[in-house]
């Protein structure tokens, strides 16, 4: 359809915001016409006002304009004014990108004009290569939400989604809903006065969910297979008995919770002894006591109990969990209260190195102290069985001495271990070995498959990628609920250690995200961070060499493989980052409005002065998430940087195809700067892996550059955060100075 | 001007011939000028101060302060009990508050008070004379009677502990209360604003039992006053006045210093500024003579 439209291009140059004072608008118009080959060129003194916008709209309606280039302010400014949804649109940045960053003074007029001239060339060149994305509307898509796990997190997500009007399917592996909450005698209070343990509320919530007309519950069930994409997932739910039901699903919330760290792995703290239990074990004793005095498994009434915090957690030796599970101090306080409430004479000691009761937990702590619970700052070194009871040996950290405590019962506050399924790094290794023919690897693979939670048929593996310490990855810094699988959201302790109250709010957030996902899918739109994007990757399969790079490198596992080993693009799973485009060595992947050509044509449109001009040219590929805004911000704060750079925004550094670098160098650019978000463990890359992949790919081009007779420093990367408006100017200026010292590129004049 | 009536609790140190006997003279002059009528509580007794706890148990100490409160209720009904001494203030107010909180302690205390035919009904508020001056009178009113501004004097406002903590004056910060500095300015003198030992303890009762420790505190206080160019130290507390003044000679003897920093009461500054004589200001009652203040009081330049 789009190909049949008669293309008519138009460029609009604004002279407002000082553009008319600093630049020769007439010259820009001439360039748009003669070099840009725009069918229509107009300028206006105040393009974003109603008159200017009307002018453009009139041209679209009456002059049949289908492609609009606006040469004015940054694409990030005036988006409501310059909203032309029926035409393809490019915006070239003359304000934040030129007049606000080039040094003041008439001695800089020449280079300022040259910069503006180039940007107009670039805007027009890009315009000729873009199409207005049509999107793929699909009203038939599913909006049902699958919740995997029926504990507090799952029940909350289900309940919230159902109340919002969506159908929900819950899959719970046990015979009843409720998860861990079923096993608690009481919970830490959710509301004021935060002084007493409260009823868990799980029975009520489970009943509400079971009775809800929009919620379907599968008990004794697991997810046997998940295939498809947001809006069109097909989920096979397997009952314990063997029966399999197929559910059509729009989005998935994984609320599969946690298991407790195995107490048997803590023999030095008494794990394995009869009178040493974990917090889960204590809840069982409390449930049996039912409000009366708590008794041990052997029936003896517990007169003295010691709680050891951070058991097998916050461990720096690498033997146990490295992190803090967040809830356990409040849980021990609650459990100490079980004893005091039943019998105030019970000796209860909570032994800690740091007591963590954030927020209103402080009131709960005070309440426990009021009841006579003793808090001792100490580090336990060993728990021995002593006759019928236990002896805790420890270092008292306030009195600075070694001491010991006798107790009828010792409770270890062990940590949460997420039930996140298969670790994809381990999986991919095993799969590679299995494909290589190893029988033991094949065996391994089927064993691992059994532990999978979602059993995704995705090529990248059967579960969600895990981040640190085995928790389901979510983009903690920018989008806390987003995972690396579009349409699948982690909620509750499977995402990070948390307590029950936090789990309920987490689950509510995940439910909202799931709803957002199904609505977006039905509109053919992308989710975060390119919300509303209608473009999607299009592949010229006849050129594909089946190298698998796109499939393997997609941060979101959006690409599967068909039986002929060609990539299968699942548009609804795609975040439109373009990493696949960047990966493809034969450049067969593109988006309607973002392709190898749209960027390539821009960089080739720039006029490169010869090597005697003393006017270097540096290409900056800046990711639109953090780097480009930082550059805009530099403009806003009138921070000066070199007028010799030409900036092209890219969706993510992951989408940078090496051909752009090659073309730039061949064209005679003296250097290429790639600016993107932080990578690594504390990543800020909005597409999680893009920045990292770019770094990895660029690491390989050093040899190519040397072969071309170029210094490897001519291509460099910089990590830029959105707050780096001063720093980014410094990077640019330092880099340009470095290049000037290196001398002009020997490739000039050959392009 | 109608006088404001307060039940006055002078405290043992303000008795005639006692260690703070030059205080009540000046506070009397100040109150006269400001329209405050101090009605001494008949047959008041000692409050136990900050050292009574050693031998006196809780109930005996509550009883002795309750006696003062009950006497006020009986003889000076409707009047606040105003102490001249901070320790008296703290003992009395803490007693009143404790008895308010615990009906059991209240009934037990009144049991004991039966021996003196008294009953404390809990209607009396326990305050300090500085509190009355700052909160009820105010700095503007305090300034009105000034006829001899203490020009040229730089004074370190040593608030100390017990007028400041735990109750404080007029809701001021515990860490840097300003009321004494403001009083200094009210009388036309300059307050040493960087006097960093403003709320440091002088050692209190432990000046007797732990002389070295207390004298270390006193040394810091006096040194800071000197470092800040102060001509004298002003204080609201009778024990601080005695300790900081009287032990300077000891410190000089043991540590070779040459301290001779006069220590005066705020009421003495006010009296001189109001035109009072040497006698009225109690300026004959000092071990280290406050020469500059004496000069102003006697009209010499």
């Amino acid at each position, binding site marked *: 359809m789009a190909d049949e439209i008669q293309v008519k291009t138009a460029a609009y140059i604004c002279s407002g915001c000082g553009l008319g004072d600093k630049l020769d608008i007439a010259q820009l118009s001439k360039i748009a016409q003669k070099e840009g080959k725009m069918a229509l060129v107009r300028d206006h003194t105040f393009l974003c006002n109603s008159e200017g916008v009307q002018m453009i709209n009139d041209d679209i309606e009456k002059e049949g304009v289908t492609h609009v280039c606006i040469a004015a302010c940054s694409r990030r400014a005036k988006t409501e004014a310059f909203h032309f949804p029926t035409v393809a649109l490019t915006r070239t940045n003359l304000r934040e990108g030129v007049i606000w960053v080039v040094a003041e003074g008439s001695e800089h007029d020449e280079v300022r004009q040259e910069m503006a001239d180039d940007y107009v060339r670039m805007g027009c060149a890009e315009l000729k290569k873009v199409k207005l994305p049509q999107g793929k509307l699909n009203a038939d898509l599913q909006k049902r939400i699958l919740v995997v796990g029926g504990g507090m997190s799952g029940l909350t997500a289900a309940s919230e989604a159902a109340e919002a009007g969506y159908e929900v399917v819950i899959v719970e592996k046990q015979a009843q809903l409720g998860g861990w909450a079923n096993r608690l005698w009481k919970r830490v209070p959710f509301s004021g006065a935060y002084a007493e343990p409260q009823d868990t509320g799980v029975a009520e919530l489970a009943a509400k969910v079971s009775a809800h007309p929009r919620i379907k519950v599968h008990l004794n069930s697991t997810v046997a297979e998940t295939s498809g994409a947001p809006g069109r997932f097909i989920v096979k739910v397997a009952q314990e008995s063997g029966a399999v039901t197929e559910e059509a699903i729009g989005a998935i919330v994984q609320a599969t919770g946690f298991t407790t760290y195995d107490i048997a792995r803590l023999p030095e703290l008494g794990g394995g002894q009869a009178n040493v239990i974990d917090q889960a074990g204590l809840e069982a004793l409390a449930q049996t006591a039912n409000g009366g005095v708590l008794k041990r498994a052997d029936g003896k009434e517990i007169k003295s109990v010691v709680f050891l915090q951070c058991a097998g957690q916050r461990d720096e030796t690498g033997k146990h969990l490295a992190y803090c599970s967040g809830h356990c101090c409040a849980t021990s306080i609650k459990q100490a209260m079980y004893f005091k409430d039943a019998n105030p004479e019970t000796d209860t000691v909570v032994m800690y190195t740091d007591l963590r009761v954030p927020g209103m937990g402080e009131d709960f702590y005070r309440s426990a102290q009021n009841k006579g619970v003793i808090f001792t700052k100490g580090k336990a070194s060993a728990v021995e069985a002593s006759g019928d009871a236990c002896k805790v040996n420890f270092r008292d950290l306030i009195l600075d001495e070694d001491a010991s405590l006798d107790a009828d019962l010792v409770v270890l506050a062990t940590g949460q271990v997420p039930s996140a399924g298969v670790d994809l790094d381990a999986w991919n290794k095993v799969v590679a070995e299995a494909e290589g023919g190893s029988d033991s690897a094949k065996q391994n693979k089927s064993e691992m498959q059994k532990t999978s939670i979602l059993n995704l048929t995705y090529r990248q593996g059967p579960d969600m990628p895990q981040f640190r310490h085995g928790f389901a990855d979510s983009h903690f810094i920018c989008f806390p609920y987003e995972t690396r699988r579009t349409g699948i959201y982690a909620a509750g302790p499977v995402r990070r250690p948390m307590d029950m109250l936090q789990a309920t709010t987490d689950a509510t957030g995940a439910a909202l995200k799931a709803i957002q996902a199904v609505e977006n899918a039905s509109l053919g739109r992308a989710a975060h961070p390119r919300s509303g994007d209608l473009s999607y990757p299009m592949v010229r399969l006849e050129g594909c060499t089946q190298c698998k790079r796109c499939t393997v490198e997609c941060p979101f596992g959006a690409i599967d493989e068909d039986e002929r080993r060609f990539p299968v693009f699942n548009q609804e799973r795609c975040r439109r980052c373009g990493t696949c485009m960047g990966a493809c060595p034969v450049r067969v992947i593109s988006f309607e409005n973002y392709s190898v050509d749209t960027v390539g044509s821009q960089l080739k449109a720039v006029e490169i002065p010869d090597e005697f001009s003393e006017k270097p040219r540096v290409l900056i590929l800046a990711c639109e998430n953090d780097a480009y805004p930082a550059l805009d911000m530099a403009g806003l704060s009138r921070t000066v940087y070199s007028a010799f750079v030409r900036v092209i925004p890219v969706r993510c550094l992951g989408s940078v195809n090496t051909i752009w670098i090659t073309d730039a160098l061949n064209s005679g650019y003296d250097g290429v700067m790639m600016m993107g978000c932080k990578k690594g463990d504390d990543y800020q890359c909005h597409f999680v892996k893009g920045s990292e992949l770019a770094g990895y790919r660029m690491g390989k081009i050093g040899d190519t550059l040397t072969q071309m007779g170029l210094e490897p420093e001519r291509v460099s990367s910089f990590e830029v955060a959105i707050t780096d408006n001063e720093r980014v100017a410094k990077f640019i200026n330092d880099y340009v100075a470095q290049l000037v010292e290196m001398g002009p590129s020997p490739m000039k004049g050959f392009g | 001007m109608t006088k404001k009536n307060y039940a006055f609790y002078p405290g043992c140190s303000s008795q005639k011939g006692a260690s703070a006997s030059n205080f009540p003279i000046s506070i009397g002059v100040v109150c006269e000028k400001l329209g405050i009528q101090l009605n001494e509580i008949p047959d008041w007794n000692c409050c136990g101060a*900050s050292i009574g706890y*050693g031998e006196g*148990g809780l109930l005996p100490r509550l009883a002795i302060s309750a006696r003062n409160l009950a006497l006020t209720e009986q003889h000076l009904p409707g009047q606040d009990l105003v102490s001249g001494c901070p320790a008296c203030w703290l003992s009395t107010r803490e007693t009143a508050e404790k008895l308010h909180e615990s009906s059991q302690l209240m009934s037990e205390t009144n049991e004991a008070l039966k021996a003196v035919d008294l009953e404390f009904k809990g209607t009396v508020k326990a305050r300090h004379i500085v509190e009355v001056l700052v909160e009820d009178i105010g700095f503007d009113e305090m300034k009105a009677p000034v006829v001899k501004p203490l020009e040229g004097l730089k004074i370190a406002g040593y608030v100390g502990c017990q007028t400041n903590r735990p109750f404080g004056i007029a809701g001021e910060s515990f860490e840097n209360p300003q009321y004494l500095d403001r009083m200094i300015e009210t009388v036309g003198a300059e307050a040493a604003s960087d006097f960093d030992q403003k709320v440091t303890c002088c050692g209190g009762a432990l000046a007797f039992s732990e002389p070295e420790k207390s004298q270390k505190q006193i040394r810091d206080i006096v040194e800071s006053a000197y470092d800040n160019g102060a001509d004298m130290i002003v204080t609201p507390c009778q024990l601080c006045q005695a300790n900081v003044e009287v032990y300077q000679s000891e410190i000089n003897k043991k540590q070779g210093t040459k301290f001779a920093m006069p220590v005066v009461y705020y009421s003495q500054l006010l009296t001189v500024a109001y035109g009072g004589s040497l006698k009225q200001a109690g300026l004959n009652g000092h071990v280290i003579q406050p020469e500059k203040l004496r000069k102003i009081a006697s009209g010499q330049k």
Partner: protein
Amino acid sequence: MNDFNRQAVAPYHNNFLREVEERVEDGEWVKMCMQCGVCAGSCPLGNAWQHTPQKLFMMIRAGKRDEVLTSDSMWMCTSCYNCIVRCPRKLPITHIMHGLAHYAHRLGMAPKGQPTREIAKLFWNNLAKTGRINELKFSLSMYFKDGFIQGIRNALAMRSIGIGLMKAKRLNPMELLGGHKCKDKDGFRKMIARAREIEERKLGKAS
């Protein structure tokens, strides 16, 4: 001295803490301490305490009865109230310290010859006689508490201060003959005795 029940106390069990709660002034607050240490850091005589208030609270919780009660730490308190205004849990630390000191004194466990303990006793006995403090008698009783010879020595050492105060009319040698008193000094004594009796009864019952 009251004959309190002294059971053998297993370390870290609540008995001493309970004892303090029931018998020491404001003792019920000890369990609320969160061990932040601001009290210890704020005390003007802080480095003179064998065990700072923070540590004392922990020792009480640890059942270290003897170490706490025989310590001279609490007697270092000058009643400056710095700890009280800064404690984030609002413990009335000054009063708890005084309470512990008094309790140790009553039990006869406070260190013998502890100077503050001794002058505190002298002070109270002085005021208990007449309802008012006789400063001269108090000073003399302080100087002579360690015997006659030492008394003469102390008095001589302080003579210049004494003379200075006498000149300032802030020390009255005539107080030796009587000094100020309450008119109802008999009633006053009876009142104190009655109060003490009620208190002993309460404590006796609790043991």
